[in-house]
């Protein structure tokens, strides 16, 4: 199976390795050699291999733009109304309400290169392209905070020490919106969009504890569930 993506691919790769599944993985991340530069979407060294690929390409591209926007609470806390998610009655009115369309556009811009890559695969690859939804949010703020501190991140510089983690309800909405952006783009491109494995989510839509990896990623057990989905869609 062919997998293209960034950090969310790691859980799948770990699962594949433990299960002895052969995975042809190509990393597309800001610091990776295949990351687009200049006008060319695909680097020449990738194109040579790309033209010889056969079978379904699975994409786990993107999936962190929502975390860039709202994992850590902002100096001036914000929120937005998602038209398909009921806003909690207790929502703090002191937060700045940002228009849904503005949040959506901002995520689209942050995820811009990933969306262009997805489009590039869809348009240039003669075979099937399937996109995997990024894993859900982890509800537990303590786990996220500790995970960030453990990575050696400067808590003062990032605002984590002063402002903390954004409320789970906001992070959930941002994740949903990020997913919807990819789902919409998939529909336009004729790419199959595969939602997260239903077994991995709690009733309120968060990642179940046994699938937690680090603050923004799932683990190999989650990867196994996704790998099973990939087999079904291969």
């Amino acid at each position: 199976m062919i997998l293209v993506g960034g950090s969310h691919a790691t859980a799948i790769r770990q699962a594949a390795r433990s299960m002895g599944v052969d995975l042809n993985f190509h990393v597309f991340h800001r610091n990776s050699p295949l990351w687009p530069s200049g006008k060319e979407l695909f680097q020449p060294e990738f194109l040579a291999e790309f033209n010889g690929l056969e079978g379904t390409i699975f994409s786990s591209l993107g999936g962190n733009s929502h975390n860039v926007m709202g994992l850590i609470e902002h100096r001036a806390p914000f929120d937005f109304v998602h038209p398909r998610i009921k806003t909690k009655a207790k929502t703090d009115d002191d937060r700045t309400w940002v228009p849904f369309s503005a949040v959506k556009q901002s995520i689209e811009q942050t995820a811009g290169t990933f969306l262009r890559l997805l489009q590039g695969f869809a348009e240039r690859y003669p075979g099937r392209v399937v996109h995997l939804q990024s894993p859900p949010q982890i509800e537990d703020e303590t786990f996220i905070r500790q995970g960030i501190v453990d990575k050696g991140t400067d808590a003062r510089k990032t605002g984590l020490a002063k402002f903390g983690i954004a409320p789970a309800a906001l992070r959930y909405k941002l994740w949903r919106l990020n997913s919807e952006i990819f789902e919409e783009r998939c529909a336009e491109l004729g790419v199959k969009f595969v939602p997260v494995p239903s077994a991995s989510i709690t009733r309120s839509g968060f990642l179940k504890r046994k699938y937690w990896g680090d603050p923004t990623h799932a683990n190999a057990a989650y990867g196994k569930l996704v790998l099973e989905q990939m087999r079904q869609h291969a």
Partner: protein
Amino acid sequence: MGGLAGEAVDPVVSFPFRVGRTERVVTAGSCFAQHIARYLTEQGFNHYIAERPHTVLREEVAREHNYGMFSARYGNIYTARQLRQLLQRAHGRFVPKEEYWLKGERYLDPFRPQINPGGFHSLEELRRDRKQHLERVLHAFKAARVFVFTLGLTEAWVDREDGAVFPICPGVEGGTFSPDRYAFVNFSLAEVLLDMKLAIQALRRLNPKLKIILTVSPVPLAATAEDRHVLVSTTLSKSVLRVAADTLSREIANVAYFPSYEIITGNHAQGRYFDRDLRSVTEEGVRHVMRLFFQHAAEEGEAPVPAKAPSARLREEDAAREVAEVLCDEALLDPT
């Protein structure tokens, strides 16, 4: 004046006060007021933005959502009645019955129908945004030291039931027009004067020392709902507004009229200050207006150059991006 080059004509002569470089200037009005707001910002004056975009939004997204066009996201305020009702709404003294207009599946605010591109995605979103907006409107007028208001139109459409006045005709951008629900009005001089006087009273209650600069938009009407030619309606509308501005500036202390209308439309310009559509004001015309504005109505001296320090938005987004990327990098480094 016939012997002068058009751009040398200066009809201001004198102006009763000057805008300080650090004084908070709040702007509102019709399209032409946008030019004034832009120049104030560019020249380093304190064009006060009370309804700022959240730092999470990228600048181009914020601009597209009409943040920073005026001091709050009220969009164009064409009539004196709109200004008066905006203040009443901000104080909670007037709640119009017309809560929203539908445009497809989106919700428009009837009092600023073009403020959010495409409209709001839910009624709840519209309500929250409006509540926040009106709070910021009140804040803007409380904080202001100078208010620049451009009078634009006398023609408008109102709700027959409660008199709420709309910036555009219902049914054009959203909602459904019904002659039973909406009525056309062409405000008389007496009505414009009364609306402006009540608005100024309300502003001065919030802010007794507020200096007010009135201008009349030189942009002609695009259409008229009167049974006459649009040229005739334009002349009447601009005449009413011009007389109202003059009367207010004579009768009320610290209310001044700035003659941008004359600078753009006067014979000296030979029509050059209008674009090919004969409505839009050219950049050359705006420059002439603003040059005289800064010469006569603004504090002298070089404009302070705004510091190029990274904005709060960039600093915070960079920090948040760094956290997300550190986590992603770590995840990529650990594939076993």
